[in-house]
C-alpha cells in the first residue's frame, strides 16, 4: 500500500496537488439518551463533516452509547489558554459573596 501513496505525489500535476484534501480534526459529542445533553467523548480525523459523522458512529457509538452525534471541526472551538488559568479562574475562589452563604432561608419555605 505504501507505494501507492508515494506515487500519488509523483503523478499529480501542480493544480491537483492544491486540491488534495488534508484530513481535519473533529471533536465528537454524543447524547447518551433523549433529554440529556451532548457530551464530549473524543476526537477523530476526517476529510469532511459527513465522513466525521460516519467515523464517530463507528468509533464512539459501537455499543449503543448514544442517540445523537454532533461533530464540530476542532478549529471552530476557541479554547481558554492554560497559561492564563491563574488570571481566569483563581479570582473566583475568594469571593464568597458569590455563593449563597449569607442567604437566610425564610422559615415558611419548607421544600427547598
Amino acid at each position: 500500500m505504501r507505494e501507492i501513496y508515494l506515487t500519488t505525489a509523483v503523478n499529480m500535476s501542480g493544480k491537483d496537488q492544491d486540491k488534495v484534501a488534508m484530513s481535519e480534526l473533529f471533536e465528537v459529542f454524543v447524547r447518551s439518551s433523549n433529554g440529556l445533553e451532548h457530551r464530549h467523548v473524543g476526537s477523530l480525523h476526517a476529510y469532511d463533516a459527513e465522513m466525521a459523522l460516519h467515523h464517530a458512529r463507528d468509533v464512539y457509538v459501537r455499543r449503543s452509547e448514544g442517540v445523537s452525534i454532533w461533530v464540530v471541526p476542532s478549529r471552530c472551538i476557541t479554547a481558554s489558554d492554560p497559561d492564563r488559568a491563574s488570571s481566569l479562574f483563581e479570582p473566583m475562589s475568594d469571593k464568597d459573596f458569590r455563593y449563597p452563604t449569607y442567604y437566610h432561608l425564610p422559615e415558611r419555605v419548607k421544600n427547598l
Partner: protein
Amino acid sequence: MSPTDSDSDHNKELLCFVLRLGDSTLIASQRLAEWAGIAPTLEEDIAFANVALDLLGQARHLLSYASQLEGKGQSEDDLAFLRDVNQFYNYTIVEIPNGDFAQTCAKMYLFTTFLMLLWDHIARGADQELKAIAQKSINETKYHIEHFGGWLIRLGNGTTYSADRLKEAFEYTWPYVSEFFSPDPCISRLAPTIEIDLAVVQNLWLEEISPTFLAAKLPTIEISRFISNGKIGLHSEHLGHILAEMQFLQRAYPGGRW
C-alpha cells in the same frame, strides 16, 4: 410427486439461495477484513472492520439457517470451514482482490446495493426465518451503501488522479455485476415463497446506483456480456487463496476451540 418430495425440493432451492447469501456475505467479510491494520487512516480501518463484522454477523445467521435446512448435522462452522472451493456459491465479485482503496469501495458499493435489493425482496417474502435475517440486515446494509457510496463521490470529485483511479477500479469490477442478473434457476424456483424477478431487480439496481455514479462522475457502462459463475460454484482463481487462509486453523486442528 408426494407432498414430502415437493417439500424437500423446495428446501433444496431455498438452501441453494441461503448458501449463496451466506457465502457471499462471508467471503465479502473475509476480504474486507484484509484491510484491518493497513487502511489509509485509523478511522477508516475501524469503519472497514465494522462493516466486515456486520457482514460476518449476517453470514452466521444465514449459514446456521442453511445448516438447519440441510439437516445433515453440519454446523455453521462446518459450512464455513470445511467446504471446498466448488461447494461455495458466493457471487464472484466478493472474492476478487481488494486492489487499492478505490477498487475495494467500488466492488463493495456494487455488491451492497445489490444485496439491499435482495433483502427488500426477502423481507416481503413468506419465509419467516429469512425474513427476520433480512429485516435485521437492512439497516446495516443501508449504512454500508452510504459509506462506500460516499467514498466513490469523494474520490470522483477529488483530483484528476483520484478520479482516474476510481475509473480504473470500475473497469476492473464492473464485469462482475452481470452475474447478479444472469439466469438463475436457484432464484426463479423460490417463488412463490420469495418472488424475485431478476429483470426487475436489474432495473431497480441501475436506478439505485445512477445518482451516485452521476455524483462520482462515473460513466454509465452497459452490463458486460462476460458472466462470472461463482454463484453456481465455478469460481475465479482467487477463492482458493481466501479459503486457504480462512480455513487453515480448522483444517490443521480439526474441532479446535479457543
